[in-house]
């Protein structure tokens, strides 16, 4: 149920089913979400500000404090430690404008079809000077798995179908934040490499996190056993370390943006300077300085 002209990439009902299945045992697999949640919380602590009304999207973010005068709840969580207070579609936010002081989203936005649309709605749901702080998976995520599966599928079936999601690129995010109407936008990234005993434990983890393939264009046929075995062999061969363990790359993108407010720093209007640049530079060799 989204706008007619938007491009559907992900199957939202399937994403929800994956999350519900993952919820049963999520604590065993939540380490990546916990780690990134900690990094988001560190960023939040650096901002010396109280955020009374909060919406946390995704897993492992702050638990709701049930105080009557503040709103502080989690949406769409599979994490039992942070139970959901509401469920909704990230592309169809059910909130009045100017409802929140803070919206955080931890590794939840990579399944959104219309990311610009979702971000515009979050910008509107924020109060003036409210903060949007989010993490999401970036383009280098699972690059080893993507390449191994692609090559294995080509070798064993003669064709390739998408099995790992396309992810956003950090270079796109600054512009995306600006287009969504956020002030003072910042985007950056870091990389977390997880080492697994073998590629099978990586696949088990992805399932446990509720993060298996939900692409609409995914092949409806299950992965053939020979394809899987070849992919695992390629993964070991190309990326395996001397001790037999294999790395899996997770690129994490971070975004910060503020709902515009008069108190925020802005560039001055051109021509509004009261001091000449020459004065600022100490009049080194400028001869045409005004008297």
């Amino acid at each position: 149920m989204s706008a007619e002209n938007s491009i559907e990439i992900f199957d939202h009902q399937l994403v929800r089913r994956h999350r519900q299945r993952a919820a049963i045992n999520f604590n065993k697999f939540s380490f990546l979400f916990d780690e990134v949640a900690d990094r988001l919380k560190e960023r939040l602590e650096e901002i010396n500000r109280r955020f009374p009304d909060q919406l946390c999207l995704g897993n492992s973010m702050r638990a709701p404090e049930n105080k009557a005068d503040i709103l502080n709840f989690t949406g769409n969580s599979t994490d039992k430690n942070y139970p959901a207070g509401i469920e909704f579609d990230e592309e169809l936010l059910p909130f009045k404008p100017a409802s929140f002081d803070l919206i955080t989203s931890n590794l939840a936005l990579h399944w959104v079809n219309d990311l610009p649309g979702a971000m515009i709605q979050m910008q509107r749901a924020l109060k003036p000077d409210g903060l949007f702080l989010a993490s999401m998976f970036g383009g280098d995520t699972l690059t080893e798995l993507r390449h191994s599966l692609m090559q294995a599928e080509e070798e064993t079936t003669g064709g390739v179908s998408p099995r790992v999601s396309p992810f956003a690129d950090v270079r796109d995010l600054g512009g995306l934040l600006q287009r969504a109407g956020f002030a003072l936008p910042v985007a950056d990234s870091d990389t977390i490499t997880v080492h697994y005993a073998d590629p099978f434990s990586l696949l088990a983890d992805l399932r446990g996190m509720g993060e298996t393939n939900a692409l609409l264009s995914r092949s409806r046929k299950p992965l053939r056993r020979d394809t899987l075995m070849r992919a695992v062999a390629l993964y070991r061969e190309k990326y395996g370390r001397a001790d037999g363990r294999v790395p899996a790359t997770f690129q994490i993108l971070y975004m910060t943006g503020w709902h515009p407010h008069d108190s925020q720093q802005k560039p001055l209007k051109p021509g509004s300077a009261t001091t000449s640049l020459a004065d600022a530079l100490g009049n080194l060799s400028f001869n045409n300085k005004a008297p």
Partner: protein
Amino acid sequence: MGENSQKPDRKLLEILVCPVTKKPLRYDADASELISEAAGLAYPVRDGIPIMLVDEARETPEE
């Protein structure tokens, strides 16, 4: 058990709108539903948790 008798958070109800029309919702405590008259949809509230998903909502007959 009466698991659906739990009321959603009062402050949450104040800021909720219909995700499709962005119009106000009416809370029906007996049916445990949030009703969007503009969209003709009733969103369920389960264990006090509003489920604001169109494919989980019940279509309401036109009045």
